[in-house]
């Protein structure tokens, strides 16, 4: 028994310990707490959290070890072979009670007022273990009289603190902001900000979520309800493709809270600001509640009934339109809806013109899918983090997929591995990286080509001619990327020296598709060198991967099966429309007018479409141009499935009915189909899902057993939910790099993407998130700001060819010189006006306003 290595590679040794007389075998170095919980014994804790560093401060987890006189904190004591642990002796019980009595000695005891009342860990513990009577008669120590706000979303009452310091640790170890500190000591220790000042942080509220008591509280949720009044639904955050599981809760029809749960979903307790505070869009006043129709050619949109809207559609949308009809579905719709959408377009309207999203070129998407091995099944982010090297490229992951970033930070801090980040802008994750490459926007191709050349140097060195040729090319690539040979060599060395590599490739590859080929080449090259390479896409729309897998793409149908005759993608459809040859366009849940790069072109094209139907939850830029607007449902109002960037299929559940006359998108699509073909179906989400499972081997045995219980053993990785691989013949087209050109007049190259607090234009309807924004910003590097005499917070005029806008300047240390960033989310500063179709990254200049 005991001391037997079970896995010679991992060098884990199993030891046998006795817990309350029950013998169990666990890995060496397991904490007593985990061992006891595995064995089925309950040990109360405040300060312990599996993914945070143990500090053993709350002393609730004290246990007795036979032969030791003093009790030991089980959350920081590892097991030893042969020890005997007792967790329920009178000594332990009385120690727990005494600890609680001490905690209550200075606790504010204002439970009736406290928002945590009813779901407070301290309440529960005292109820269960504690003395129900305190003996402390002395006046209580108070940090302050009134609660104070730490940010627009956090309000704080330190008098309730139990000094578990989870808030400080989560801020440092998981979120990486490190803006909370433990000030003072002993019972006067207060976790708070610098001089209790307003925090300049990510406002993700993870400190609130981990707080066991009512010390950190949500400000938007303040004094609105009691937890027992809330009705909740398990859902998936709709704001990026990380796919965080969360619960949204409403009281009397108003959604007032979104929360994550410890050990549930891949995100466990963490969410970002968008997920935790972006729920306000559900109850927004601006929601579409009734169909709108344009009764005259250039008239206004007027409310109408569903019958009228459908009648107009039937009159004006040709049922056998062929190539002059097209459909664009947003990647926020549920998988079932997307499946039915493409079925509607392909089978009812008999058109191959379907595409998802509103920004990427369809051919680029196809190449990206092939380069990132999406057709080969899901790749878990936790598996990626087991690699020797993680290479993040083409994504501002800290802002676009914050929770993926938390996972990378947390896991990379705990093991020896390389984290390599390549991107033009500085980001929070840089502090976890051991190699940073700052290249120009749209220069991923040049960087990757340079690395490929360098890795291949050994082969090439044999011939002097080749070396010369290589150097010439290498210089060109380095110049285009704005990097030095040392940067590239460092990267190549790290890749060469790693046995397993995970490449996380972001949406920049879709924005500037000429990098896709190099990405694929690097992947193949590394594989040919015998390395284990995993590729994971980093996407910014919740169901983007689901949309592609459902075949909402002109070149392939569900399951990446090649379409017999490829149709037009969004670019093609817009071009056709601009040529006056688009009869009808059906856009569901997408907003190309606001997001397609080149606003003038997309607006002209959409206004030339003879009949435009838009289905959305808000009156978007696109919907304003429509002839018929159909009100759809938000993520809180439907049942369905979303597939995240890893290929993890997860379920969302309905919390509320859609507002007013709005309908669930699936019902709208089905009703539209039935209008032309009585047998169009299946009739509900469950039946659609059955059809998907039957038709698509990828989804055939995906486990959707919706499990909102804690995952066993703190393992957040539910591999059964990953989609399976399939055989797909996808082609990677060669894209020419669009010339961006040097221009002394416009010194900055413009990068765009999602802001940390926003996802597309959708989150603009959340007041809390807008308050966090404090206005629209343009971001440049510290050196550039210094050189041009501009200071952070100043109003600046950003002008490019043909468009200029006044924004607030933010300055970031570590961003590449000559790079300016404007998020694509601002209504009043549409960044797509800077872009020209078919051109590279636009150039701008920034002057004092």
């Amino acid at each position, binding site marked *: 028994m005991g001391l037997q290595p079970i896995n010679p590679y991992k060098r884990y040794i199993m030891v046998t310990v006795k817990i309350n007389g029950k013998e169990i075998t666990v890995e060496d170095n397991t904490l007593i707490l985990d061992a006891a919980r595995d064995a089925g014994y309950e040990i109360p804790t405040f300060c312990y959290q599996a993914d945070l560093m143990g500090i053993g401060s709350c002393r609730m987890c004290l246990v007795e070890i036979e032969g030791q006189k003093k009790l030991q904190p089980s959350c920081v004591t590892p097991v030893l072979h042969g020890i005997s642990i007792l967790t329920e002796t009178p000594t332990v019980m009385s120690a727990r009670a005494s600890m609680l009595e001490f905690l209550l000695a200075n606790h504010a005891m*204002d*439970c*009736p007022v406290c928002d945590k009342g009813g779901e407070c860990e301290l309440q529960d513990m005292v109820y269960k273990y504690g003395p129900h009577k305190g003996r402390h008669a002395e006046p209580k120590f108070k940090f302050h009289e009134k609660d104070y706000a730490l940010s627009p979303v956090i309000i704080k009452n330190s008098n309730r603190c139990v000094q578990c310091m989870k808030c400080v640790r989560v801020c440092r170890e998981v979120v990486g902001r490190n803006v909370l500190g433990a000030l003072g000591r002993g019972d006067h220790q207060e976790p708070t900000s610098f001089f209790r000042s307003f925090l300049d942080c990510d406002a993700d509220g993870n400190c609130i979520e981990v707080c066991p008591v009512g010390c950190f509280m949500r400000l938007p949720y*303040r*004094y609105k*309800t*009691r937890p*027992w*009044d809330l009705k909740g639904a398990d859902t998936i955050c709709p704001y990026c493709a990380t796919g965080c599981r969360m619960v949204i809760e409403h009281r009397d029809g108003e959604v007032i809270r979104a929360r994550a749960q410890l050990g549930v979903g891949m995100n466990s307790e963490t969410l970002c600001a968008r997920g935790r505070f972006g729920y306000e869009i559900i109850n927004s006043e601006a929601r579409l509640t009734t169909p709108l129709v344009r009764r005259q050619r250039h008239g206004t949109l007027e409310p109408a009934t569903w019958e009228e809207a459908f009648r107009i559609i039937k009159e004006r949308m040709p049922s056998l339109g062929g190539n002059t009809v097209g459909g664009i579905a947003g990647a926020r719709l549920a998988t079932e809806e997307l499946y039915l959408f493409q079925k509607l377009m392909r089978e009812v309207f008999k058109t191959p013109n379907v595409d998802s999203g509103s920004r990427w070129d369809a051919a680029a998407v196809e190449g990206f899918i092939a380069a990132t091995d999406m057709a080969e099944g899901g790749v878990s982010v936790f598996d990626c983090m087991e690699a020797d090297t993680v290479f993040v490229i083409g994504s501002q992951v800290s802002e676009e997929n914050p929770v993926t970033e938390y996972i990378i930070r947390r896991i990379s801090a705990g093991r020896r591995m390389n984290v390599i980040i390549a991107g033009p802008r500085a980001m929070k994750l840089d502090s976890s990286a051991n190699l940073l490459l700052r290249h120009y926007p749209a220069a991923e191709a040049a960087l990757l080509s340079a690395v490929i050349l360098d890795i291949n140097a050994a082969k090439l060195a044999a011939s002097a001619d080749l070396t010369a040729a290589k150097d010439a090319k290498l210089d060109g690539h380095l110049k285009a990327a704005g990097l030095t040979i040392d940067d590239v060599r460092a990267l190549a060395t790290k890749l060469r020296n790693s046995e397993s590599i995970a490449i996380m490739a972001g949406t920049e590859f879709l924005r500037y598709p000429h990098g896709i080929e190099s990405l694929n080449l690097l992947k193949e090259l590394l594989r040919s060198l015998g390395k284990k390479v995993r590729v994971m896409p980093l996407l910014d729309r919740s169901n983007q991967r689901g949309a592609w897998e459902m075949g909402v793409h002109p070149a392939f149908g569900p399951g990446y099966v090649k379409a017999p005759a490829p149709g037009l993608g969004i670019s093609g459809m817009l071009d056709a429309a601009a040529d006056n040859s688009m009869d009808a366009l059906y856009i569901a849940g997408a907003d190309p007018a606001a997001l397609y790069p080149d606003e003038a072109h997309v607006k002209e094209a959409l206004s030339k479409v003879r009949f435009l139907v838009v289905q959305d939850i808000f009156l978007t830029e696109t919907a304003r141009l429509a002839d018929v607007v159909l009100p759809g449902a938000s993520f809180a109002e439907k049942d369905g499935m979303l597939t995240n960037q890893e290929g993890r299929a997860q379920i969302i559940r309905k919390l509320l009915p859609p507002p007013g006359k709005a309908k669930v998108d699936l019902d709208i699509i089905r009703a539209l189909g039935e209008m032309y073909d009585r047998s169009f179906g299946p009739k509900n989400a469950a039946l659609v899902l059955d059809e998907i499972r039957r038709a698509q081997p990828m989804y055939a045995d995906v486990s959707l057993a919706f499990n909102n219980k804690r995952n066993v053993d703190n393992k957040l990785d539910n591999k059964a939910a990953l989609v399976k691989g399939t055989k797909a013949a996808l082609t990677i087209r060669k894209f020419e790099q669009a010339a961006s050109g040097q221009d002394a007049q416009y010194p900055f190259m413009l990068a765009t993407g999602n802001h940390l607090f926003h996802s597309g234009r959708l989150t603009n309807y959340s007041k809390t998130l807008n308050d966090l924004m404090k206005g629209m910003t343009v971001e440049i590097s510290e050196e550039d700001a210094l050189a041009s005499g501009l200071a952070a917070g100043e109003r600046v005029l950003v002008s490019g060819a043909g468009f200029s806008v006044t924004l607030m300047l933010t300055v970031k240390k570590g961003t590449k010189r000559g790079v300016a960033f404007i998020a694509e989310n601002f209504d009043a500063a549409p960044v797509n006006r800077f872009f020209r179709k078919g051109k590279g990254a636009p150039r701008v200049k920034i002057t004092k306003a």
Partner: protein
Amino acid sequence: MNEGKGRFDIMELIKKVLFTDFVKGLVITFGYNVSMDSVITVKYPDEEKWIPYRRFRGLHTLNRTADGRELCVACELCSKACPTRCITVIPMEDNTGRGISDRVAKVWKVDLVRCLFCGYCEDACPTRAVRLGREYELACFDRNCAVKNREELLRPQPVPEEMSGGVVAKARLRTTPDGIEVVADLSETRKRRV
């Protein structure tokens, strides 16, 4: 045992034969008729009104502190404790000093049609804000008026807390545009004879 039971039965039989209970009742009734100084009936509502004891469980009241601040902190424990779910509380933040804390009730209403006056809300209240008062004239013409909201319940009670109750007060019936009401004169009371 059997013996005892047998004797009991015989006693019962004798009582029945002699109409003992009937006579006892008659004595009480007759007693009221002959003694003219004590009237057992209350001339409600025209002349008199019963003022209950303090422990009486009538219409809810929401109390204030001596300096007029609301005691209710909208903790919702009353609504949670309520077996008939007749209390609705919606809290809000208020920094003007309306309540004893910055959490006060935006809505506090009780549906008297459902309420069974058990007093659990009173027991649950951590600040003794909600009490079951001595108001018992709750009849009204439609169901909506049976829902009493915060403003009404915060009004001072017609019967002050100091008064121990258990008396009959002089009263008169008044007809108002809203309906009828019985106005009691608390200075003139008499003990009710039972």
